[in-house]
Every structure is written in structure tokens, then in C-alpha cells.
């Protein structure tokens, strides 16, 4: 439930809940959750289904997750071309404390960080280029 603005809303009115980008647990796309766990999951082996994603996210996320030495296997698939769903399977080594959830989170965070670096480095490179031209 959104906590934002609930108290400030006009009383008695049926306000539609406002979804804020930062609101956790509220990412629903057309009624489907952004992420669900597919059946048959254990702590160290989970198949996730991510809504509204494709190879843009899938392939590089797979790569980032695979770089984690605690990860035994990670692969992704788009089960059907006309469904906007992307499945990602993660298995971590059972003798590590890293669960598949940890590995996914780690992969996502690493990729965000890599994005930051690229954005930063691009600005630097662009400035440098302009300086060299001036």
C-alpha cells in the first residue's frame, strides 16, 4: 500500500492510489507484478519471471550474475515472443551463503554501478574531446 499522501488526501473521497517510482512493492504493470518466482524454487535455485523485459536486460544481467563466483548457473530465456516476459534462472553453489535472490540482487546492483561508470566516463570523454577541439 502506498503510504504517500494518504493523510493529506481530502476526506471521504475515493482517491486512486498514486504510484511513485520509488514505491516498493507497487511495481505492477497492467496488473502483473514486475517479478514473480516460478514454481519449484529452492533457496539456491530459483527461476524468476520478469515482466516487460527482453534481451536488453536479460543478456547483460545474465552476464553480470554469472560473474559472481558463488553462482553455479545463470541463464535467461524469453519463452514466447508475443508475451512480454523474460525468465531468468539462477543457481548458486549450495555451500555458499549466497542464495539465488542474493545473486540476482547483486547482479542488478552491479549493473547499475556499471551504468554509472559508463555515464560518468562518457561525460569525461566528451569534455576531453571538446577541450582538445577548442
Amino acid at each position, binding site marked *: 500500500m502506498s503510504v504517500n499522501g494518504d493523510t493529506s488526501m481530502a476526506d471521504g473521497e475515493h482517491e486512486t492510489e498514486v504510484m511513485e517510482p520509488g514505491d516498493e512493492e507497487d*511495481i505492477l504493470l497492467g496488473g502483473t507484478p514486475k517479478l514473480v518466482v516460478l514454481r519449484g524454487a529452492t533457496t539456491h535455485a530459483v527461476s524468476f519471471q520478469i515482466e516487460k523485459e527482453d534481451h*536488453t536486460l536479460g*543478456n547483460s544481467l545474465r552476464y553480470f550474475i554469472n560473474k559472481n563466483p558463488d553462482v553455479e548457473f545463470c541463464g535467461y530465456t524469453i519463452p514466447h515472443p508475443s508475451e512480454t516476459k523474460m525468465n531468468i534462472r539462477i543457481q548458486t553453489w549450495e555451500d555458499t*551463503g549466497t542464495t539465488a535472490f*542474493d545473486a540476482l540482487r*547483486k547482479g542488478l546492483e552491479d549493473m547499475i*554501478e556499471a551504468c554509472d561508470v559508463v*555515464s560518468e*566516463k562518457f561525460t569525461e570523454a566528451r569534455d576531453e574531446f571538446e577541450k582538445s577541439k577548442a
Partner: protein
Amino acid sequence: MAHNNYNGYAGDSMEVESTGPKVTVREVEPGRCDFVLQSCSLAFANSIRRVMLAEIPTIAIDLVDFEINTTVLPDEFLAHRLGLIPLNSVNVAKDLQYTRDCTNCDDHCDQCSVTLRLHVKCTSPENLHVFAKDLMIVDGRNDDIGRPVLKDAARNGPLIAKLRKGQELKLSCIAKKGIAKEHAKWAPSAAIGFEYDPNNKLKHTDYWYEVDAKDEWPVDQKNAEWESEETAADASFDPDVQPSAFFFDLESVGIIEPDDIVHQGVSVLQTKLAEVISGLGSSDHGLNGGVSPDPYEPAPADGYAYGARGGTTPYGATAYGSNGFGY
């Protein structure tokens, strides 16, 4: 989280990313930027390419209301042409709402759309050319969003139609925010050149040839030199080598500057990642000890699915994900 000191892409010195991604800008001209991305994976470079092509929000004409059209061109034809006209999209990502998400209106408003009008009539014996510059923004916003981009010397913009004497065209357009994944008219980039391994040292491709592949296939000299051509490459072929330099040649449509396309592309990618993190919820709830529920039983009330309580939404249960498995 336990990660045995693994610290991501910048960690292992054996990895390509030992120093993190590197960028070199090689050429910049209006509407174009040529740069090299290094020390990152092909997968990641490709994600950036894909996101810059198809997922950066821009504005384009989406609905056209014809009042008068006595030209030789049918309404649909003109509507399609209007959709493709480049409209200024600087700051669309943050300053314009998606109409479908707009909380301010039931249909469309200034915060989620730009209205443009066109009214032309040919009264002279000479044909009248109707250009993008003839599209008039109906006041409402106090920024440049939705203004037709006029890049030609005469500042006309693209030609929409030609009218003979007596013909008239009167219409109004609603331009909306969207992404190129939905329709190519929302693409911010005209083309993105993307290449790695210009000398094919990694043998990711096998050139067809009649006599000699080297003579018959073009090589981007600039990229080839960057990688310092090695003639003895064949002798020392290593199947484990990963590509590490990615040559981007980014060409903008003109509605967003190329460097902005790069930054916005990266930030769109980050938003996607953040959404999944948010969908993952606070780490360790949900899968209690990895016991998977019986798929033939309804989902537990507290929701096996991450992100929200099962497949329930503010509008009720949905077919997909209602049992928490996505099926």
C-alpha cells in the same frame, strides 16, 4: 548478503572490467557522436545500444483530427507522415508524463501532451508546399517540448504535403510521449553503428568469399587501426579471448542531442534494474527456507510472488500471476 568478498564488476583482476568500463569520444558533429566503449562485456555494450535505439522516451504525434482535407492524400497517409515528424524531445523523460499514467487528466492535458494545429490553403496557381514549420503549437507548455525540429538551411523541416489551387488542409494533432519499442516514430536515434573486432580476429563471423575475403569485404579502417591490425592473428587464434572494444557511431534524429541519448539510455537501463530490485522486495522475505508451495493450491495470502500480494492489484486479481507463478 554473503558474497565472499566478491565486489562485482570492478573486482577480479582477471576480468575484463578490472579497471571498469572506459569511454573514448573520437568524433562529434551536430547530431552525431562516435565513441569507443572499452573494458566491458559484449552483453553490456549491446544493452546500451538497444536501450538507446528503442527505449528512450521522446514525443511524437499520436492522434490526428482532420477537419478539412481536400488534398489528394488520404487522411491516414497524412496522419502517418505527421507521426514521423521529429519533435523536440529534450527533457521529455522528466518533464512530460505518459498520457496513460497522467494523474492530472482523463484524456490528455498539457502535462502529458502537446497539441499542434495545421491550417493551410492553396490560393495561388502554384503548388503550395506544406512543411513541418507550418505546424503551430497550441500554447499550454512553457518549454520547447513538441516543437518541430527544423534542421535544414531554409528552416522548413520535413515536407508534409503539396496542395494545388483550391485545396485545403485543416487538422489538429496530439503529440504524446512514447518509446520506439512501441512505434519507431518515437526513436531518438536515426542509426547506431555498432561494431567490435573489426579484423575478425575472434572469428565470430565467417566471411563468404569468392577468392579472398580480405579483398571482397569492407573493413572500417578507423576501427581496424584502433585495434592495431595484426597480420599474424590467424596463427595465434585464441577461442577464449573476449571482445573488449565496442565502436559506437551514434546518429541522432535531431530531437535529442547524441550525448543526451547516451546518458538517457544508461539511465533508462538503470531504471529497469531498479524496478526489478524493487520487485524483488526486501531481500529475504517470501521464500521461507525455499519451500515451494503446491502449484495446485491457491497462493498464500501473504503472497508468494514478489513485489505485490500475489497477482492481486488495486483492481482485483488478475489471470497472470494470480497463483504467484506467472502461469
